[in-house]
């Protein structure tokens, strides 16, 4: 890691370790905090979120529900109860503000696993491996809806790694640990950022919300870009950077791609302070 070409070395030298890892640490903190808030009930009897990421109640009053699961239920011809619908609307509204796939980067427990695999890849300089099309996640959404409609049962939830891992943590794993382990091995040995970046239909669904979401990463300081490519190296969805950073004819400086997870790693890693969080509106802040 002392290699000066290693992504982040430049930023760490220029801005210091803390400010080149700020959003990363905040994000890990947020992921662990969400786990802790779900686990405090079963472990010590302090109920903050009761349920799982599929649906829960916050402080035993406010219902929350994953809109993607409600859509799957709708595809079978079932209209969920009003409590679940209200919960789904609250979650959809929350991510319309905070940035669709912010769910992936700040809440989803699978991200910790796939980020670890990506970090190992970077650390040991592994080949990219199997190249998948990033649009596969939308094909997966289609596949989920089709199989759900044909079987009349929420079949995706039998294997969904997101709910599987979270349910395992909150209610006990059984053999459910095999799926997150499979995802980890797939991401590490088969395809770089294979699951979250190419296949996961849950992330695909939140990326559709992200196309309209308010909070976005902006490249307001793009004229300072030194073309070091560190942001591309650490970004889980590097295709969203170019239009904002290098876009011409009025493109940019906002990252508008729905697949940006608002993880903020590019903000950390940039020695020239090109990126920052802001709104999706074009107004220049500086």
């Amino acid at each position, binding site marked *: 890691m002392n290699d000066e070409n290693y992504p982040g070395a430049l930023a760490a030298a220029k801005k210091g370790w803390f400010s080149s890892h700020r959003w990363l640490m905040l994000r890990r903190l947020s992921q662990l905090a969400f786990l802790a808030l779900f686990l405090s*009930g079963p472990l010590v009897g302090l*109920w903050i979120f*009761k*349920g*799982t990421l*599929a*649906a*829960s*109640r916050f402080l035993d009053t406010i*219902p929350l*529900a*994953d809109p993607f*699961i*409600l859509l799957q*239920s709708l595809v*079978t*011809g*079932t209209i*969920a*109860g009003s*409590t*679940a619908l209200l*919960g789904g609307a609250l979650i959809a509204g929350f991510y319309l503000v905070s940035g669709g796939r912010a769910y992936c980067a700040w809440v989803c427990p699978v991200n910790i696993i796939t980020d670890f695999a990506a970090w190992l890849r970077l650390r040991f300089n592994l080949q990219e491996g199997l190249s998948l*099309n990033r*649009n*596969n996640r939308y*094909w*997966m959404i*289609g*596949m989920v809806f*089709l*199989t759900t409609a*044909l*079987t*009349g*049962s*929420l*079949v*995706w*939830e*039998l*294997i969904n790694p997101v*709910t*599987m891992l979270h*349910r395992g943590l*909150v*209610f*006990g*794993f*059984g*053999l*459910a640990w*095999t799926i997150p382990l499979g995802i980890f091995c797939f991401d590490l040995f088969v395809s770089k950022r294979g699951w979250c970046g190419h296949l996961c239909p849950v992330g695909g669904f939140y990326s559709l919300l992200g196309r309209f979401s308010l909070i976005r990463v902006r490249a307001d300081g793009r004229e300072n870009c030194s073309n070091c490519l560190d942001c591309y190296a650490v970004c889980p969805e590097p295709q969203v950077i170019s239009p904002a950073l290098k876009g011409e004819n009025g493109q940019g400086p906002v990252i508008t791609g729905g697949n940006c997870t608002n993880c903020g790693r590019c903000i950390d890693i940039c020695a020239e302070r090109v990126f920052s969080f802001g709104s999706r509106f074009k107004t220049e802040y500086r």
Partner: protein
Amino acid sequence: MSERRESPEQASSRRKFLLETARSACGAALVGLGLGLYGNRQAMARPVYTMRPPGALPGKKFLAACIRCGQCVRACPYQTLRLARPEEEAATGTPYFSARQIPCELCENRPCIRACPSGALDPQLTDIYKARMGLAVLIDRENCLNFLGLRCDVCYRSCPLIDKAITLNALHNQRSGKHTLFLPEVHSKHCTGCGKCEKSCVLEKAAIKVVPLELAQGELGHHYRVGWEEKAKSGQSLIPEQLDLPDRMPDFTTPITPEWKP
């Protein structure tokens, strides 16, 4: 066709696009095939030992509505309910209980149903005694102590609807010739399928078990009318009360066997 020649780059990018699309479609279709077969198998399964919580929608409707959040499990004060793990019989992530381990205590304030956000546990089930989680069946009449002539009665005594869902029918003990058998009988009109009888059965393995309704119940032919019920419904017999059948006596004027002539 050859009017507007496309450049080699255009042709190759179109080729690439078509190939990518076909690749994605194939991959998604394969995953979908596997998932569909696996999921359908799980959805079709009728596990006998897994009971759904009270108010659960029937069969596949439940699998379409339940979003696997586990709030009913948390709401259950007796830790009766659990979420199915992948290696277990019930569809992964759905709530169930095993009556022999922990039966349903039939809480009158229905905490599990009120906790359910999706409606998979029907909120219209306001009277817990109307729940039909299954039906108790005295399945082993050879080992049931009451059938052996003893006064065990434990299933009968532990039934929350004693004398309604389970009654004891007195019958002469043919074996001893002088005692009475008190045979437990379950009545589907009242049995909720809570499983307290199965839990309390004193045998090593329960002689009385709660099984899914579709397994426990037969179905009368739809044309079939039970005479005494029809009579009660209409207030009178549907046919004349005293049916006077013509008296037929053997006719002795003709020989019973005609004379045999070779």
